């Protein structure tokens, strides 16, 4: 087991005991939101960091999950326990649709197409108000229960552990993917596309596959998010949420699984702490932006690179040598 994976394991053990320490619903709520962000950020990192696809449409997969769960539970009356996994399927299908044009594009064109798909989804949600609730969204969705036990009880204890389990499953999935020959081929495609092709790797197929894989847990996170908050609104496709999650990826460290998870936890709580300081509510976004610039400038490998500098393993940290395509 690598040092980073050991750190992750230790982190999850600590997180499992957090509800024993923090018993109020608000702190647990912050952890739940941080776990959701951690899932989105670490899965975004799979396509952005590992494969070098500058995918600005990753939040689309999250939004698809949000609206899949919301429509299934609110309109179709599907049990939330079934609606949440269904989000993986719809998000993966949307990834295939997005990947088709992206697979053969490079650079700024990838950004433009993926961002356009994201905007297209916003318009679709707004225009199909009968189904999606339009700009008002869908509210008062059914919450999770097991028998007579509602997850909203016990200061969100059930939601906390379910979010933690989802993050653990997502992280295990990402470690498995990153460690597989397919995971190694992502870095090959990112760093030397021609060389990879000349060794039998289909660049287009690799890009499609990684977008689909990165969409699965992001969609599930979207489904869980909307069932937890009991609301679905078009804001989930917005630039603000996207910027926050992107900063988690970049500050945490692209090219690692652990980095974005740590950054999601740190930024969620840092942002909340700054919001509590009078007159600092909006300035916190400036602070996060400055932090992102400083990290990119001083340690392009992110928090993970800083950790590795503090406790070197004898090998150079794995930072990408090229900008994402």
């Amino acid at each position, binding site marked *: 087991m690598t040092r980073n994976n050991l750190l992750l394991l230790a982190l999850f053990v600590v997180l499992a005991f957090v509800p024993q320490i923090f018993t109020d619903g608000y702190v647990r709520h912050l952890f739940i939101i941080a776990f959701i962000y951690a899932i989105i950020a670490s899965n975004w990192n799979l396509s952005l960091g590992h494969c070098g696809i500058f995918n600005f449409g990753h939040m689309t997969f999250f939004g698809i999950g949000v609206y899949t769960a919301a429509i299934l539970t609110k309109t179709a009356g599907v049990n939330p326990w079934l609606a949440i996994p269904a989000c993986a399927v719809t998000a993966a299908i949307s990834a295939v649709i997005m990947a088709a044009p992206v697979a053969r594009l490079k650079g700024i064109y990838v950004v433009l197409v993926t961002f356009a798909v994201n905007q297209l989804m916003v318009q679709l949600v707004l225009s199909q108000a009968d189904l999606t609730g339009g700009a008002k969204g869908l509210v008062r969705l059914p919450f999770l229960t097991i028998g007579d036990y509602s997850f909203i009880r016990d200061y969100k204890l059930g939601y906390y552990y379910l979010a933690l389990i989802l993050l653990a499953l997502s992280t295990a999935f990402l470690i498995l993917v990153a460690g597989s020959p397919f995971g190694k*081929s992502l870095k*090959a495609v990112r760093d030397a596309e*021609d*060389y990879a*092709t000349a*060794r039998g790797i289909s660049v287009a197929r690799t890009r499609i596959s990684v977008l689909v894989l990165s969409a699965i847990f992001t969609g599930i996170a979207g489904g869980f998010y909307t069932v937890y908050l009991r609301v679905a609104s078009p804001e989930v496709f917005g630039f603000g949420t996207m910027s926050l999650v992107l900063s988690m990826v970049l500050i945490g460290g692209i090219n690692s699984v652990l980095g974005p998870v740590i950054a999601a936890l740190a930024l969620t709580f840092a942002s909340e702490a700054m919001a509590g300081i009078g007159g600092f509510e909006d300035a916190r976004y400036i602070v996060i932006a400055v932090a992102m610039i400083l990290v990119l400038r001083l340690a392009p490998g992110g928090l993970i690179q800083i950790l590795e500098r503090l406790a070197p393993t004898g090998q*150079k940290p794995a930072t*990408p040598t090229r900008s994402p395509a």
Partner: protein
Amino acid sequence: MNDTILEVVDASKHFAGLKAVNGVSFGVTRGEILGIAGPNGSGKSTLFNLITGVPFGPTSGEIRFQGQRIDRWPAHRIARAGLARTFQKDAEFPDLTADETLLICGTYNGQLGRVAARTRSDEVLGLVGFADTRRGIPSRNLSVYEKKQLMIASGLMSRPAVLMLDEPASGLTKPEIENLDRLLVAVNASGVTVLLIEHVLSLLLSISQRLIVLNQGSVLAEGNPAEVVRNEAVITAYLGGRKQ
């Protein structure tokens, strides 16, 4: 029996008005070492690109490999069919170790499982003389010669029928070039047909059984290496004519 393993028929690549490769035709006999020479910009690397489809195929003409027309195939399919090539630049996966590089080459190109890929890695790294102690180091930290060894080893993972080398001696010291000479002869002796683009004439002439010289995208001369290098047109193309 026709023993031509690779055939290039009237292949051209035009970029707007530039004819990078213009109506090139030649055949490669199974098991030979074919040298390809020519001044900078003569179309040597572009010719390799057209044959392998990486990153582009020909504008016109045909490429036939083991009897099949491959010039419209996707490049990764051409590689999997048994045409392996190396590059002058971007010749590494910087984040991947030698073991990881060979694992993916064995998996994708050779269609091997993990265990079979590991066994084949041992074979090819032994063949190219790559030190075992360097197998776990990210490629970006390898020396120029080690990177060249690894690139050749990665090409051999799938047991290709043809290995195409694009200036493998560039940036190497004299002893390393001598090692490379022995390595390429050993690779060829194992049954792999070799196409070699090289500016280091000592290497090219020492191992090539036949030589093609390109100039301005066309074949200028072809034949026995010793005779081709005495060809007046070749001397003029390379040196601008004999010194008086």
